[in-house]
């Protein structure tokens, strides 16, 4: 069975700096893979290359289980339409819109009448509009935002904005969810709730690739962990094995462990 996502020898160079240096990584259907590494190791760059925010200098990204297709060269919205959703390290919800509207936006790729033209006057379009609102309400409830659907996104506390962003990403019913440091800035209680939320997503069979610094978040939820350092993959394996890997300890602590 081919993997759902396959990154092959991905390289991203900025001038003389290698943000990514021939990184190869695959994610199987239903798997949760943790991506860790010190700041500046290239983790977010990898997300950006996969989602079409930036075009890698070299290398390939393949996506899809039945008939994998290459993603490099596609526009960001085309990649999203193929079933990859993501969240951001610094939250990027639409601040001046309600929580419900934020999630409704996310359903775009799952609707058929299109946004453009007079389609919103047809009964089919109205039906879809209701469907999108219902789906958004269901997702808000799923992430623990029931009853907050009319709140302005900017008025929600930080921890809830994080959940809102996850609900928005889920709205497209993605095959692969990329989470970029979802625990950053959360307090210990919120972190525990986040771990539970991700656990429920796993239980639903969602495939997840997660960047996270907090080992108490990433270790319990990951089936496998890959470690980046200076743009290179220096280790990969079970959470346990990776934690004990001398190269990983060196990358994090900066001292060689002879």
């Amino acid at each position: 069975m081919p993997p759902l996502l396959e990154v092959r020898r991905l390289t991203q160079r900025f001038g003389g700096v290698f943000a990514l240096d021939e990184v190869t990584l695959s994610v199987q259907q239903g798997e949760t893979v943790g991506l860790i590494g010190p700041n500046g190791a290239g983790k977010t760059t990898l997300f950006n290359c996969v989602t079409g925010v930036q075009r890698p200098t070299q290398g390939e990204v393949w996506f899809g289980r039945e008939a994998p297709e290459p993603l490099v060269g596609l526009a960001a919205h085309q990649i999203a339409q193929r079933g990859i959703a993501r969240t951001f390290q610094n939250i990027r919800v639409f601040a001046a819109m309600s929580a419900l509207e934020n999630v409704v936006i996310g359903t775009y790729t799952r609707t058929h009448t299109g946004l453009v033209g007079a389609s919103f006057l047809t009964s089919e379009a109205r039906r879809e509009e209701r469907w999108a609102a219902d789906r958004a309400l269901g997702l808000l409830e799923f992430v623990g935002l029931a009853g907050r659907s009319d709140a302005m996104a900017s008025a929600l506390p930080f921890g809830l904005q994080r959940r809102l962003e996850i609900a928005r990403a889920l709205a497209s019913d993605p095959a692969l969810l990329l989470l970029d440091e979802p625990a950053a800035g959360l307090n210990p209680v919120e972190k525990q709730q986040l771990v539970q939320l991700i656990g429920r997503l796993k239980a639903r069979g969602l495939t997840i690739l997660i960047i996270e610094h907090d080992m108490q978040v990433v270790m319990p939820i990951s089936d496998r962990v890959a470690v980046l350092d200076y743009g290179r993959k220096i280790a990969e394996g079970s959470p346990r094995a990776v934690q004990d890997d001398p190269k990983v300890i060196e990358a994090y602590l900066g001292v060689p462990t002879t």
Partner: protein
Amino acid sequence: MTPLQLFLQQLANGLTLGAIYALIALGYTMVYGVVQLINFAHGEIFMVGAYAALTVALAITGAPWWAVLAVCALGAMALCGALGWATERVAYRPIRSAPRLNALITAIGMSFVLQNLVMRIYGATDRRFPELWPAVRWQWGGVTVTLTQVVVWGTAALLMVGLQWLVMRTRLGVAMRATSQDVAACALLGIPVNRIIAVTFALGSALAAVGGMLFGGYYGTINFHDGYLTGLKAFTAAVLGGIGNIPGAMVGGVVLGLLEGLGAGYLSSQWKNVFAFVILVCLLLFKPTGLLGERVADRA
């Protein structure tokens, strides 16, 4: 005329101008919202709308006036919508990631192109605008209200309510608002951002087209350079309301029209054009975010 009558009369006149400014200002503000570009060719789109309505009106005979009016409005909206879409496609999209100044200069160039195109086709002299509605007037306690004014108010109100509904209640509107907040995040949610931007240009241009038709019907003549001054005033209205803010453009247009109407009535009609630009200068000095605007610094 008693002072109260004079005041009410100037109010009615100002409201008519204001409704037209508001329709044009919406295009400036919507486009600025999604691409942060002041589309200085927008005034010319308004002018093309007036000529399009004139052409359609001359082509139809023997229909009731309201039917002609509706066909003129739809024809002008369709043509200008397509024109707005096309200018975005050929002139602005290729340089969207270039520095702001490039786009601004392109917009000014686009405005010259449109002006000269219309001058070639329709000539440089004033064109008499056909009467789109009968010259009916009513008197209420010494205040005269014409059918022209009622048509302008009614049409503008209808379009603004429609736009507000579209922006606030439909998924297209949600997508437009989202695009104006974070283009990159929208793309990552699978929204074809380029199409949303093109639709925004088309919508704003269609509204300006109706403004052009009403302008022609109100003043009775049009000229190929009418888009320049009126466009600048509508731009002032958009800044007055807070650029990027849709209700702001409506309020800004009406306020500017009222100030101009009252200024012309009480001071001198020759100074009419000065008021708008004094307001613009004062705004840029003291309150660049406008009446309803607050977002200027919230962009990364």
